[in-house]
């Protein structure tokens, strides 16, 4: 994959406001974020020849967003089914299309009304169409916080991970969000606040769980050459990787405390030519606190079983500098990539990690939907 490394770049980032009720359609959110990303890059919709997103039946498709913005003849498009497992895969696939010369300028977006219209695992939608649901829903096991709590408990039983570890991580991510003007949750919290939170699904309390957010984010992916001539510091896509995950179908990985990221991370690092020690900032998929804990282990920042104390300590790699899903907002993964871009450009304001040159950003590590993906980005 040396032929892929650093050949493409993220040249622009755009957001809508994050809220609990956008009051508009996901199509409107998508258009707003895309136009903001193009303006950031110094491009127009006429420069766009590809569109990519992922959805779970909850958002505007590229086949609608394209015509809505007058992009009538895209040369490449991707309408990926899936949630947080594929958030980074979408950007990786756009980079592949650009690196292959199939498209030159692709906009990747995710637009959701995840609070006001389509709550994950909650009201406003039917149960997901997946063969394992029939074996779980009759027992009241239907929602991501329950599923992640199940995996977190296994980690706690095996390694002695404590709820206080989860709590300290939530406290630290909130402290980052306080410095982030985009963030929805900007009031500092303490460990006592965390412990006083109501139970959602033991061992998870309220503050273990991500926000539910209305909003959109978009990224412009183009060739490294083209990005070099645009108005913003390019952020090079050094590596993109795809992996499997934990399946309810018998025959897979029998240890749910090890995610697919453990198998994928070496491939990702090899593509980028770096290791965990070279990662200056890590924007890690945090649908729940435990998701960060297990990925810190599986991406090699600490030994297996030490993710709890590592995450709680605040030492080591800076994690979720924007506040993550727990405190910035939930845009299903793309906002983690956008924050990594900001850190590498050096425009992250009060939350800037000094001298950030290389960033890791990860998708859902393969629980629930057996797929994962991640990116390594480098300052151009």
């Amino acid at each position, binding site marked *: 994959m040396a032929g892929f490394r650093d050949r493409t770049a993220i040249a622009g980032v755009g957001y809508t406001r994050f809220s609990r009720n956008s009051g508009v359609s996901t199509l409107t959110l998508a258009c707003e974020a895309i136009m903001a990303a193009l303006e950031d890059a110094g491009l127009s919709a006429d420069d766009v020849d590809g569109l990519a997103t992922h959805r779970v039946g909850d958002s505007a498709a590229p086949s609608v967003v394209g015509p809505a913005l007058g992009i009538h003849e895209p040369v490449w498009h991707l309408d990926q089914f899936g949630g947080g497992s594929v958030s980074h895969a979408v950007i990786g696939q756009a980079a592949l299309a650009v690196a292959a010369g199939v498209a030159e300028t692709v906009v990747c977006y995710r637009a959701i009304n995840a609070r006001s219209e389509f709550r994950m*695992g*909650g009201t406003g939608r039917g*149960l997901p169409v997946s*063969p*394992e*649901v*029939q*074996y*779980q*829903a*009759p*027992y*009241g*096991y*239907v*929602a991501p*916080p*329950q599923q992640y*709590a*199940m*995996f977190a*408990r*296994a980690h706690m*039983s*095996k390694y002695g991970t404590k709820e206080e570890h989860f709590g300290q991580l939530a406290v630290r991510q909130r402290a980052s969000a306080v410095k982030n003007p985009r963030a929805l949750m900007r009031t500092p919290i303490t460990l006592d606040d965390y412990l006083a939170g*109501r*139970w*959602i*699904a*033991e*061992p*998870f309390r309220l503050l273990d769980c991500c926000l539910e957010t209305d909003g959109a984010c978009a990224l412009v992916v183009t060739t490294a050459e083209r990005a070099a001539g645009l108005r913003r510091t390019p952020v090079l896509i050094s590596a993109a990787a795809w992996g499997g995950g934990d399946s*309810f*179908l*018998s*025959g897979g990985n*029998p240890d*749910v405390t090890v995610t697919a990221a453990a198998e994928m991370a070496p491939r990702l690092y090899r593509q980028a030519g770096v290791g965990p020690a070279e990662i200056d900032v890590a924007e890690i998929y945090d649908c729940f606190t435990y998701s960060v804990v297990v990925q810190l282990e599986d991406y090699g920042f600490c030994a297996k079983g030490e993710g709890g104390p590592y995450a709680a300590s605040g030492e080591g790699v800076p994690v979720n500098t924007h506040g993550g899903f727990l405190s910035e907002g939930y845009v299903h993964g793309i906002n983690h990539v956008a924050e990594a871009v900001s850190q590498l450009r050096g425009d992250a304001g009060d939350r800037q990690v000094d001298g950030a040159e290389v960033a890791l950003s990860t998708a859902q590590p393969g629980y629930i939907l057996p797929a994962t993906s991640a990116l390594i980005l480098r300052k151009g």
Partner: protein
Amino acid sequence: MSAEAIRPVTDRDSAPWWERTARHEFAVQECETCGTLRFPARAYCHRCRTPRWRWRQIEPVGRIESWIVSHQPFLPGAREPYVVVRVRLAEALECVVYGNWRGDGPPEDGQLVRGSFTAVDEALSLVDWGPAG
């Protein structure tokens, strides 16, 4: 759980398994080629990739791999917190099932457990779990 159970939406692979469960038979599939036990129901063996199989009744016995206490009313009508367990089957170690907990105290990691059938109606039974023996 005090809520009404969500009825399983069965498919062409799973319907015979649910019919057996309604008769209070606990079964997994056994590959006729290599003997691997598998669950949930599907046509091909993940190990030898052949499609010949038979049902194999096994003891509904396993060990607690994890559990949660669900407080948020994700089910319409659920008024009390309820426990969901993840059980690895003793006779089919590759196979995992979920169910509700029917023990007095909370489950424990690694605890030996036995399944029991809860009849919802003639066409549907669920499998719940409690301490073995």
